[in-house]
């Protein structure tokens, strides 16, 4: 039996993140070529529900139940995952390009002395089992196809929406409990507090739909119409650096080179001129809509659909139209 394909299944409040299902779906596709088994890795405590939600998506679920896994620190995760890897020698280890993935994977790769491709937008598996990772460089001005050395596992973190979730994955996972004794002297970092972001919305890097406004919105209170549109679409609200620097919006919602890269299915930009610094953050969004009063605004060069018009007129009307359309379904 060739060595397994592993996916680190992150979860929050008992719910496995969508990216884990996307990656397991990719793993299932790869396994059709290579005959490998697909396994999910679950770390935390009280993981029954999370494990259950994954059953159809993996041949095995390695469950490590210990209090020191919540909240995440690389100290606890690294030691436990590294020893499990040494035992089973998986061929591939995938995770989401999340705050956890980006904290853990580079260090784990160095620890295991193996290759790691960060923040990928695609992975392809050859008939011969060769894995190629595609990732943006220079903020997406070019892409690189990366190959791995002989070392295993080959590791990658992947952005949201790079893969579709398989509708009929057809697996039936065996739960493999893994005892995890963590040497307390390894636990150097301590999480002392957590301040939950206001609102119940998903982070802009996790949302399928992101609606954003820039300086064209003119005043912080005007974001209300954007929030309303977001509610109608079950979307999250993003913005540009201009409004963050004005103190109108929180830095966590800034899209672009010095903010976040988003990979939404639908991105809608209102009153955003389309400076390259902003555009670099939306390169892997599927569909982009732009609304700006200036018909020559750069943003239209990067959009699929555009309206040269006044956002104060269009946004509320759009919200109403969507509500109407959705209510008749």
């Amino acid at each position, binding site marked *: 039996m060739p060595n397994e394909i592993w996916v680190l299944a992150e979860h*929050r409040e008992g719910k496995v993140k969508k990216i884990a299902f996307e990656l397991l779906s990719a793993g299932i596709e790869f396994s059709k070529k290579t005959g490998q088994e697909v396994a999910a890795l679950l770390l935390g405590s009280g993981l029954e529900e999370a494990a259950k939600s994954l059953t159809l998506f993996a041949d095995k679920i390695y469950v490590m139940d210990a209090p020191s896994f919540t909240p995440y620190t*690389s*100290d606890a995760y690294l030691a436990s995952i590294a020893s499990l890897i040494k035992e089973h020698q998986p061929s591939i280890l995938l995770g989401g390009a999340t*705050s956890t993935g*980006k*904290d853990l994977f*580079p*260090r784990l*790769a*160095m*620890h295991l*002395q193996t*290759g790691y491709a*960060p923040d990928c937008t695609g992975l392809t598996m050859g008939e011969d089992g060769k894995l190629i990772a595609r990732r*943006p*460089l*220079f*903020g997406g*001005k*070019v*892409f690189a*196809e*990366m*190959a*791995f*050395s002989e070392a295993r596992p080959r590791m990658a973190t992947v952005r949201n929406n790079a893969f579709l979730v398989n509708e009929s994955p057809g697996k039936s996972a065996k739960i493999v409990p893994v005892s995890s004794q963590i040497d307390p002297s390894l636990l*150097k*970092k*301590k999480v*002392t*507090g*957590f*301040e*939950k*972001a206001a609102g119940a919305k*998903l*982070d802009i890097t*996790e949302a399928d739909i992101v609606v954003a406004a820039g300086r064209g919105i003119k005043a912080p209170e005007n974001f209300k119409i954007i929030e309303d549109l977001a509610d109608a*679409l079950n979307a999250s609200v993003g913005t540009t650096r201009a409004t963050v620097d004005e103190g109108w919006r929180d830095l*966590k919602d800034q899209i672009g*080179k*010095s*903010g976040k890269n988003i990979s939404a299915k*639908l991105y809608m930009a209102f009153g955003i001129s389309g400076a*390259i610094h902003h555009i*670099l953050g939306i390169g892997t969004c599927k569909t*982009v*809509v*732009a609304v700006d009063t200036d018909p020559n605004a750069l943003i239209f060069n990067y959009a*699929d*659909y*555009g*309206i*040269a*018009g006044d956002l104060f007129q269009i946004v509320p*009307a*759009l919200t109403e*139209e*969507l509500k109407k*359309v959705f209510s008749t379904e």
Partner: protein
Amino acid sequence: MEIYVLVKQVPDPEAIVKVKSDSELEIENKYFTSFFDEIAIEAGLKLKEKTGGKVTVLTVDNRRVDALRRGISMGADDAVQIADPALEGADQFALARTLSAYLKDKPFDLILTGRQAMDDDAGIVGPAVAECLGIPHIHSIIGLEVDDQKKEAKVLREVENGKESLTCPLPALFTCQKGLNAPRIPLVMNVMKAMKAQIKKLDLASLGLGPSDVSPYIKIEKYVPPPKRPPVKMIKEDFPENVKTLVKLLREEAKVI
């Protein structure tokens, strides 16, 4: 406190970058000190001003030392360049091994890096250096306070649904994210001085490394241009028909809602 900041000169976000061939890029000659690295320098300088000590900027680069000069002009005390022909083609892991070979016997309390360098955007070098040195790291910090007596840092880090506070014993390595501070603009006089500052230059042999120590774990097989978006469809109807058309297109053509 002894603080080391890892810095890199990278193409400006406005620089034109194009695929020249499978194995080569064409990069416009417009460089700046990676945005997050300046934030790291600023964080180091702020701590030094509070607790005393020294800030050293360190780069691995065969060609450019501008990031080091930027660091000096902002107020760093010392600058070190590591350069070696064997580093051509090195990946981030090789860079991390090189940087930690230099750092391992230095009396550091804190090592600061950018969240990611603004070229390859990998975010590997910081955590990998921490692993090589066996010290804790925290990725993407937006708040930092240090208790020099207790040798402990209080750190704020951004996660998907909020902000997490952590404590971490020193020595440690943190990667710096926007929001941590606003980097100072150096005085022209200091920029002039930095142009003439002494920069120590080291090669791999002087760090006890050979070419086999910098062999890569990952390699770029091929550069490819970004997927091209089809030209924009401007919806030219008057309001409110344009809004109705947009909704229709999103549902029936793009199928995203």
